[in-house]
């Protein structure tokens, strides 16, 4: 029997065609996926002649946004109020920390999730449910780490961009440059990363508070967070 479009689109989401760049297809209706594929093919027809690929990426982006913000999109808790404090002194005199949910670590200092030595990206993807149920691990990364010593593993998003250039989600090199210009007073000695696909309630109630204490011990006066 021929595969249905429903099964086809869902197979990109941890299925037989698992591809984290396109796992969003599962959140779209079959009609929307058909429209997406038709338009993609149409635009590809133009790209054959002019090599212009931005139109393809733009289309994928539009459907990704539709998928995550639509009826089957990403849900989150809703709060009425936001905590808010002003920066105590200008950024040029402040110590800034970087914290990302991108799953970065330094070569030779693997956080070894679930005790597994050198876990591959494929294994992280196949164990995504375990990550989602577990307490997250915070990994410290010295601020002077060269880009080519950074490693990334995360079973929840497409890491191919981050493998080519860590700055796409872990902009340590860009922050070092901004520190050199004097815009940032001081980049904290340690940056931090964790695997964002994690138990959010536990992050809020237990682990997060411990992390905040570490940030305070580091003397951070401002924190830049990047959601991967």
């Amino acid at each position, binding site marked *: 029997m021929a595969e249905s479009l429903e099964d086809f689109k869902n197979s990109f989401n941890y299925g037989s065609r698992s591809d984290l*760049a396109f796992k*969003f297809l599962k959140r779209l209706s079959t009609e929307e996926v058909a429209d997406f594929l038709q338009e993609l093919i149409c635009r590809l027809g133009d790209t054959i002649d002019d090599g212009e*690929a*931005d139109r393809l*990426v*733009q289309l994928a*982006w539009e459907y*990704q*946004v539709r*998928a*995550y*913000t639509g009826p089957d*999109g*990403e849900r*989150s*808790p*809703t*709060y009425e*109020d*936001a*905590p*808010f*404090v*002003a*920066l105590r002194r*200008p*950024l040029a005199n402040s110590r*800034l920390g970087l*914290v990302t949910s991108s799953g970065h670590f330094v070569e030779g200092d693997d956080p070894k999730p679930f005790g597994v030595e050198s876990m591959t990206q494929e294994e992280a993807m196949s164990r995504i449910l375990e990550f989602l149920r577990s307490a997250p691990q915070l990994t410290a990364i010295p601020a002077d780490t060269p880009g080519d010593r950074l490693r990334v593993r995360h079973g929840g998003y*497409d*890491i*191919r*961009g*981050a493998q*080519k*250039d860590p*700055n*796409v*989600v872990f*902009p340590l090199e*860009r922050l070092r*440059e*901004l520190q050199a210009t004097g*815009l*940032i007073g001081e980049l904290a000695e340690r940056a931090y990363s964790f695997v*964002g696909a994690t138990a*959010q309630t536990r*992050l809020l109630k237990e682990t997060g*508070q411990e992390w*905040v204490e570490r*940030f*305070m011990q580091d003397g*951070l*006066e*401002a*924190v*830049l*967070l990047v*959601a*991967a």
Partner: protein
Amino acid sequence: MGHLARLIEAAGIATVAIYVRAFAHVAQAIRVPRAVVTRHPVGRTVGAPHDVERQREVLLSALSLLETATSPTVVELPMAYRIVSWR
């Protein structure tokens, strides 16, 4: 990430978070103290690989928000994602 931003801010440390457009509604709902939203694909929050100029522009926007916001603020940046040639 939103919960963490709230915890850090509640401890008295000013935060700014960068989100992609696909999750901007999450940043809004969870009421992060300050957020900059980029029109980039998931996994390329700050900019395309090796798009140094865009990455810097996004960081400057985030750091500027850190200094200038006087109440909880979410700002969406208008720039579309662009691929840069780097191979």
